[in-house]
């Protein structure tokens, strides 16, 4: 791992909680690593595991899937499905040789700008520790 | 011109050749014997039943880039793929060699497929005659033989203390070092094979285009691509453009007439929608359309398709079924 290594992170954020939470981080001027590129989706339940696989195939070092906290989904149940889908995908990716730490599922509410900034920083650090994917 | 070479000399010769050329030879990969470029001569399997996949992949790789296009400062640049080095295919069986010769028909007719042609030109084929027949083999019924030297540049035949070297072409001769002894002993007898009644098959099959036979046979067909991909003479491919951030690659990959979308046209029309039509295409192509255009049946009798088919669809059985249908028809 070189000191200059900058992991490439793609984040899928639900419009109602996590994307708003990321906006809140911006509005509150909280700094976090620049590595993440955010893709807006209506609900974390819209995030197809295939998108995540494509991200990794395209060279992403880490993928973040983020939605409302369980029980708070704007669409009532979307994040429960997200949780099932990605709990399984994480195990499977790890089995195939992509460390499960590279796929994060996080619940971030619209008011949790701070949490969002912190988790991006934490995720980036962890990815830097894992080093580039070979 | 028959020469003799001891096993040790053969290895030394191949080592010499490997310095300047790529050598593609049967090697052992995860329990399977496959034709692959070797890095050391020791990797070569000299004693093997036929490989699961034929050696056609060297001339028509499963996937290759035909050319790429890039936009650079407003300029559009096209970069065709080229063949970098001379190569040798070593250890090819006479049946597979004949398969290459059959592929030459469609690929080398004018206008020729330049990438194929270049590979073909820059590759020397060293064959290895069969000392034993496998249960699936029927090359003699398809116009070839276990010791057929017709389609190789050099043919090796294993004898007790080494190999008899038959130099077939000038290209083959060019590879030879000087000072090898001439071979004067008697050639070993080739193994005997079961025969398949291929006579008259081309005219027989023509009659049964609309016969329910095909739908019945297709009942159990899974329509996977195994038969086509193991076949030394199947040469269908698909071409797709890959755009990626300002660059486009045109890629060619194997494809098979058994695929559901194989004959789908741009407007959405598909001339072969049923399973029977698709399966019929495979046999009509091999036994009728190819012979009509290139005068040879597009089967070399290697028996791979019948052996690999998960549901035991076997070209030999199809041929004899067609004969029976013909007999029944003429009898009635």
């Amino acid at each position, binding site marked *: 791992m070189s000191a200059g290594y900058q992991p490439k992170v793609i984040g899928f954020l639900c419009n109602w909680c996590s994307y708003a939470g990321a906006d809140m981080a911006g509005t509150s001027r909280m700094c976090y690593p620049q590595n993440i590129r955010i893709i807006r989706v209506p609900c974390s339940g819209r995030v197809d595991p295939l998108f995540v696989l494509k991200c990794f195939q395209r060279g992403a070092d880490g993928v973040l899937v983020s939605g409302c906290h369980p029980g708070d989904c704007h669409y009532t149940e979307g994040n429960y499905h997200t949780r099932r889908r990605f709990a399984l995908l994480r195990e499977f990716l790890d089995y195939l040789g992509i460390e499960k730490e590279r796929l994060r599922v996080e619940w971030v509410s619209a008011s949790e700008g701070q949490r969002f900034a912190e988790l991006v920083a934490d995720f980036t650090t962890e990815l830097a520790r894992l080093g580039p994917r070979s | 011109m028959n020469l003799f070479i001891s096993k040790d000399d053969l290895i030394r010769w191949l080592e010499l050749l490997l310095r300047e050329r790529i050598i593609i030879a049967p090697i052992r990969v995860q329990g399977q014997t496959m034709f692959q470029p070797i890095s050391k001569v020791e990797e070569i399997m000299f004693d093997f039943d036929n490989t699961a996949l034929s050696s056609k992949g060297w001339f028509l790789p499963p996937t290759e880039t035909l050319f790429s296009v890039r936009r650079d400062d407003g300029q559009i640049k096209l970069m065709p793929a080229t063949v970098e080095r001379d190569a040798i295919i070593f250890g090819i069986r006479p049946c597979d060699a004949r398969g290459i010769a059959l592929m030459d028909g469609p690929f080398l007719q004018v206008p020729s497929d330049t990438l194929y042609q270049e590979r073909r030109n820059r590759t020397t084929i060293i064959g290895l005659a069969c000392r034993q027949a496998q249960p699936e083999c029927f090359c003699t019924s398809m116009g070839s033989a276990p010791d057929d030297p017709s389609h190789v540049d050099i043919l090796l035949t294993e004898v007790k203390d080494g190999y008899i070297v038959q130099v077939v072409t000038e290209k083959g001769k060019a590879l030879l070092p000087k000072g090898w002894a001439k071979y004067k002993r008697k050639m070993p007898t080739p193994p005997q094979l079961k025969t398949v009644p291929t006579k008259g098959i081309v005219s027989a099959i023509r009659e049964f285009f609309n016969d329910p036979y095909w739908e019945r046979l297709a009942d159990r067909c899974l329509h996977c691509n195994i038969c086509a991909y193991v076949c030394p003479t199947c040469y269908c491919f698909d071409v797709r453009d890959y755009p990626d951030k300002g660059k486009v690659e045109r890629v060619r990959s194997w494809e098979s007439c058994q695929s559901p979308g194989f004959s789908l046209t741009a407007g959405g029309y598909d001339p072969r929608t049923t399973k029977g039509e698709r399966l019929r295409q495979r046999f009509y192509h091999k036994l009728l359309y190819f012979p009509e255009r290139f005068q040879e049946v597009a089967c070399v009798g290697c028996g791979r398709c019948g052996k690999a088919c998960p549901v035991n669809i076997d070209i*030999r059985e199809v041929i004899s079924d067609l004969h029976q249908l013909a007999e029944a028809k003429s009898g009635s």
Partner: protein
Amino acid sequence: MDMELIQQIRGKARSLLEEGTVEGVIGYERAGDGVTSRPLFAYDSSAAERLIFDDTCTHNLVKYLLGKRGKKMAVMVKPCDSRAINLLLNERQIDRDKVFIIGVGCPGVVETEWNHKSETLQARCRSCLLTKPLVYDVLLGRELARKAEEETYSDILEAEAESVVSRREFWREQFSRCIRCYACRQVCPGCYCPVCFAEQLEPLWVGIRIAPEENTLWQTIRTFHLAGRCIGCNECERVCPVDIPLSLLNRKLEKDVKELFAFQAGLDPEEPPPFATFRKEEMPELGE
């Protein structure tokens, strides 16, 4: 060969055909090699006389029902294959009224290849606890009390104990051999999409390159689409012409689905599959 059982099968097939209960019977016949067996579609009683059943009858014939939708068909179903029936019933792909299920008691099937039959029982049979099909209209042969051991996933656990790097290397090598013949998909009773994701152009999930990277994506998505759906017939692994150990993928997901969601495919046609449902209180640690 259990001739008595075979006579029962032929008799049943004959009467089903003669009485017009079904249009055809999907069963097994002896293959051209005289050793192994292959699927047979019998449409008349004379063809029914070719039906056999023995320990080479590995094919999961349930797959063929998908190609005969709308027709009344009978199908021979081993205990393991019956899970595919339940899967397809759950996914509304077959009409129970249109399918006559001839359940057969199965002593386990052996490893075979063309022209060759071994004495080794297939691995999946060694851990098969089903003594009779889960669903059938008639059960022929005996319900067997077999000595099977419960699946322990020892090979999967071993792989999990390896480092992630060595697993990555392992699968890279395996997938590099894949020739994208799609036999694994074609034989799978759970694969029936009108247009497979691998053949879709818009969106383009996987390209046509027969190359490690795309092969990996192909196999990853294929297996993931079978998560909670694979019924373990292992036909995909059997038909793979380049011997990729696909059961290591399918059974990994089977194991995880069992652990995470307490679900196994094909046991109950009514139970909602894992991705159709959820429990609010499960996996509280994920994402918090």
